[in-house]
């Protein structure tokens, strides 16, 4: 495979909080359209990595490139404008706005409406059509005018994804999208995520191995702030370094989960 530029590339990324190094020389290169699951034991730095990529924190050193352009140290909104969107592990929506308004907020910037106060929302045909389409995509069209705070948990998770993809970013980061969902909800939700992220570069942090294998072409294993393996799932599973790092912890769980998932 030859890629002129990667969709997302991390080069020797470091993040320290005080004296504690959370991210230690992470390297990762994700080709456009690839779907990558980031796994690793608790405290490996998965969420921190997402926070660095999306601009919530700046890295201590190293580079982050989005479609070949440096984005490390930029503010979240600048990174978002360059085509990277993320969801949150803890649902992060606009509680007192309706489902439709939540989605429209996510749409506005990408269609160039910025801070306009001389245009009526009702007249923005493209924004309204896109918001309606998103409603259908995340299957919340029946909840169009419900306040987001009154949705069920699973519906809020779907809205979380909806807001994330609303701006049409081509690199999407999902932080534990199925956290807190039941098994049956999870299965349906993985299907939904597949549908709405077609053609996009996808990075997910996941603990549920069922979700990992359902969504990812490649798996990146993060241990103590370093990517120790990045490959297709079968090869990662057989990787001795991964097995060593995981011994008696997450991979054991993962293999049990994967085994039971396989049946």
């Amino acid at each position, binding site marked *: 495979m030859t890629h002129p530029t990667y969709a997302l590339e991390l080069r020797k990324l470091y993040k320290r909080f005080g004296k504690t190094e959370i991210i230690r020389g992470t390297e990762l290169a994700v080709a456009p359209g690839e779907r990558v699951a980031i796994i690793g034991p608790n405290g490996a730095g998965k969420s921190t990595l997402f926070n660095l990529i999306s601009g919530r924190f700046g890295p201590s050193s190293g580079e982050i490139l989005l479609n070949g352009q440096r984005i490390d140290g930029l503010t979240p909104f600048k990174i978002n404008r360059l085509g990277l969107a993320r969801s949150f592990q803890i649902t992060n*929506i606009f509680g007192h706005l309706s489902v439709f308004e939540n989605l429209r907020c996510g749409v506005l910037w990408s269609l160039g409406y910025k801070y306009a106060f001389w245009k009526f929302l009702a007249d923005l045909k493209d924004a309204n059509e896109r918001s309606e389409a998103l409603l259908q995509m995340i299957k919340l069209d029946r909840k169009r005018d419900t306040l987001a705070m009154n949705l069920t948990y699973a519906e809020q998770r779907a809205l979380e994804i909806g807001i994330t993809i609303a701006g049409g970013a081509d690199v999407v980061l999902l932080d534990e999208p199925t956290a807190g969902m039941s098994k049956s909800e999870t299965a349906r939700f993985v299907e939904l995520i597949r549908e709405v992220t077609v053609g996009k570069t996808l990075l997910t942090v996941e603990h549920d191995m069922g979700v990992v294998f359902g969504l990812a072409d490649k798996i990146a294993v993060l241990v103590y702030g370093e990517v120790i393996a990045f490959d297709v799932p079968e090869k990662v599973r057989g990787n001795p370094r991964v097995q060593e790092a995981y011994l008696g912890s997450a991979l054991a769980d993962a293999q049990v989960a994967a085994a039971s998932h396989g049946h």
Partner: protein
Amino acid sequence: MSTAARPAPNGLRPYAAWIAFAVVLAVLPHVFRSSLALSMLTQMGYLVIICLSYNILLGQGGMLSFGHAVYSGLGSFIAVHAMNVAAKGQVPLPLVTIPLIGGFAGMFFAALFGYVTTKKSGTTFAMITLGIGELVAAMSGMFPGFFGGEGGVTTNRVYGKPLLGLTFGPQIQVYYLVATYCFVSTALMFALTKTPLGRMLNAVRDNPERVEFIGYNTQRVRYLGFIISGFFAGIGGALATINFEIVNASDALSALRSGGYLLFTVLGGATFFFGPMIGAVLLVLASVLLSEVTKAWLLYFGLVFLFMVMYAPGGIASLVMMNVRVAKFGRFARLLRPYAGLLLAGLLVVAGASALIEMIYHIQLNAGTGSQFRFVGVSLDTENHMSWLVSAAVLAVGLVGLEFARRAFIRVWSRAQEEIEAEIKQREPA
């Protein structure tokens, strides 16, 4: 498409509320004809603008400002100087443009101070606005040339050639000037809530963190909202100047005034657009009428505010809307009796409590004028045990009655709510 589900524009119906508002503004001075009423209506007019402008910050943007009087007050001061300059004939500024001058002044200072305040949100924002409020109030004492010192700055609103025969000398002409600005400003501020910036202000209020991740700079959203708010506050301040023909820093720029905007906006209801308008009306009623009836009006207001925040944090507007909802589902009639019970018991409580409060106030403040006094038509005597006993008895009976009425009301109310919920569920497409 679910867009088709929305009601299609139907002639003038979407504008019914606005037409009604315009008619009310036009007719009010012919219903309440006394000069006191006219003065109060004029004050209500510009306070509606100021409270609505305050709610762009509080209700729509989630910004708790303790210093809104800075922008209405500086609008007042720039307006008074503009009027005095115009009166000398140096610059052609007809009186009808003075509110806009005040508006641009408010906008300018909001752009200046807001650049600092809106960098932060939440408690930090609130503290900085408090600081700037005190800063400007303190500065007003240092520049008596501009702020007029203790006496304030006076002006005369009758200057230049009459415009279309209007001199703006008579109060009624001032009222209509205020009413016109009130209507247009209200419409513009309502329009703001329907624009991308208005919606993003709501988003910043609900969840500033997420806004950063959908492409918007939250500081910029807050800053723009703050500037727009300052513009309308300045218009309101200038209209106040035209009304009173004097501006005094110890009033116009005081923390007390900022607090008044905050309290009455919350009392009216910050979660609905029209809530602050109710608040503005109450602000005038309380500060003009209630203060005539009793010296203890701030105490009463404090109690009302306390109960409102505890039991109906959405303010009067939310109470109104809750009842409108019940009425829409045809279940209001059954609430009438419980409401009558609440009202009756409530009146007893108010009568008993206020009689006691007034007697205590009388002992504290007016003991020299004798032990007897009249309060809203009732004669009370602080040295007569009967006065105390009867008042306390009325209060006690009222409190017991209120508790019974409250329980009865909650029963009926929650049954009505359950039925409405069930009806909504039924209506939902399967």
